[in-house]
């Protein structure tokens, strides 16, 4: 069992070297998130008016911004905040969304209809716009960015979980467990739900990228994160003013970091899908 899985893993990875690249990128992100402040060559908040708006050079690889801060250091340090926001948001919506979806799929009936209606109502909004409204209502803070991002992603998890649980509700192994005297809730939590995790993981990975994009978009328009905190979205927003006068490095590097992070999670998601569902290939 494990060996066939390992062989399949090797097959998928060899077949799809892009996934290997994505995995490498993922490790880089994790390292930056964990040790970013230690790796940054300069203090990301230290301003130096004399060094303002320097293009990339030997001592400042990514150049300096309008206050003379080192862009490289800010990009590195920002990784933690950006990843933290999206990891929290995704964790929240995964936990909440998948439980709701599992309940809906398992019990059906009223629970299913109510939960379905809630998900549909969320989906009736353009999601980013809803996130803006939520942040406006809850208050303009970083936590509320997390909540808003979590809420708009909820329906995706709820739907996947609902579908996966509903398929397995009547599966043979569930009946066996039921006959063995397991209670319904226990059945759901211990026997059905774990089996839905692989497809849910694909969803998580694809969703991470989208969550990062959303959170960065919110801070780009001035919500949540406040300057001078280094964060990719807000750095692009600050750099935007300088694009017209040709100082491209202010916006380019944080933007590229953002893009790579999103790219990495999307590729990982695709790779995971191939791994979990070999039928989708060939």
């Amino acid at each position, binding site marked *: 069992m494990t060996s066939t899985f390992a062989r399949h893993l090797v097959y998928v990875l060899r077949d799809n070297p892009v996934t290997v690249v994505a995995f490498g990128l993922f490790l880089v992100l994790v390292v930056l998130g964990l040790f970013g402040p230690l790796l940054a060559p300069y203090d990301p908040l230290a301003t130096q008016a004399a060094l303002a708006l320097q293009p990339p050079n030997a001592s400042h690889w990514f150049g300096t911004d309008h206050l003379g801060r080192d862009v490289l250091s800010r990009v590195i340090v920002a990784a933690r905040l950006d990843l933290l926001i999206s990891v929290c948001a995704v964790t929240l919506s995964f936990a909440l969304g998948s439980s709701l979806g599992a309940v809906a799929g398992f019990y059906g009936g009223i629970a299913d209809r109510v939960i379905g209606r809630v998900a549909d*109502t969320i989906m009736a909004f353009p999601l980013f716009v809803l996130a803006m409204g939520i942040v406006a*209502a809850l208050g303009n803070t970083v936590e509320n960015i997390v909540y808003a991002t979590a809420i708009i992603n909820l329906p995706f998890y709820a739907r996947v979980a609902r579908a996966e649980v509903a398929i397995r509700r009547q599966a043979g192994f569930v009946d066996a467990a039921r006959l063995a005297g397991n209670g319904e809730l226990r059945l759901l939590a211990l026997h059905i739900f774990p089996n839905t995790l692989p497809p849910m993981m694909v969803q998580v990975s694809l969703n991470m990228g989208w969550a990062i994009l959303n959170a960065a978009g919110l801070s780009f328009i001035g919500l949540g994160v406040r300057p001078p905190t280094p964060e990719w979205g807000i750095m692009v927003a600050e750099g935007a003013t300088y694009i017209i006068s040709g100082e491209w490095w202010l916006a380019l590097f944080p933007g590229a970091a953002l*893009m790579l992070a999103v790219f990495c999670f999307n590729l990982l998601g695709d790779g995971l899908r191939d791994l979990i569902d070999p039928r989708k290939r060939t």
Partner: protein
Amino acid sequence: MATRSRLGLVARRLAGAIPSIIGVVVVTFVLTRALPGDPAAYFAGAAADAESIEAVRHQLGLDRSLPEQFVGYVVALAQGDLGTSVSSGRPVTIELAERLPASIELTGLGLLFALMVAIPLGVLAATRPNSWVDHLCRVVVTAGVSLPTFFSGLFLVYVFYYLLGWAPSPLGRLDFIYLPPPQVTGFYTVDALLAGDTETFFAALRQLVLPALTLGLFALAPIARMTRGSMIQVLSGDFVRTARAMGLRRRTVLITYALRNALLPVITTLGMVFSFLLGSNVLVEKVFSWPGVGSWAIEGLIASDYAAVQGFVLTMAMLFIAVNLAIDVLYTLIDPRLGMDG
């Protein structure tokens, strides 16, 4: 016979939108009235004193019970009353109506661009698996969903405005040397044409190109992905084999037989694409200083102009519902198999 059941189906689709509309109204109400904090203070704006907060409280009926407030909210909505913007002192409905055409013109052109590129790309990729078009399609699809719109917008500005000087400065709908055309539709390009003013038309179009391209690049990915997948599936289908066995021309097989069928699932994904577009529109408007509802809502957010943000969210949601409805109806009219069963 078939026509009547088809009409019935369209009516059912229309009725199906009602729960969404109710949901949207309830959510916007909850967002503004039922959350912790003092809504009156929110609506009165950041600069209000105690007296004006009380005035707002009374005016909004916030001193009444929640159900009463809800009824009042719905009644006001039904009369097109979205409250007053604290930053401008003008009714939100009017402010939105003034800016909506700018946003719709931009979003529409962005979608048009996306469709015009994504569908041929998806078709070519599907008909030539593993060719360079197919690889290009795959790159575009993955890169497209990973690109933050605000970043790709800035990138385009840097390249086409700063480096090449091809594009006009990314500041609004029309360069200041031109006067806006007399308002008919609110779309500058259309109005300029109606007024027979080609110079203004091209000026307006030049301003539109980069932001529309930015939006289009973003919307391209899901459409191309869906077209390719759907086309591959249809091309391996039995009826395409039949069409080939009957000697129909390659063009006929590809377009009349395969593509028409393949577009059906693409149409259904357009709803999701539109959700993304309306969201990205906000970001793109900020990047290009586009005077649409999005940048107005951002100003409202920063200035704690509550009525503005609420009105914006509600309008976008209604627009989105309307678009989804139109897509559903279109689908119902195109696919003959609907209208028969269930």
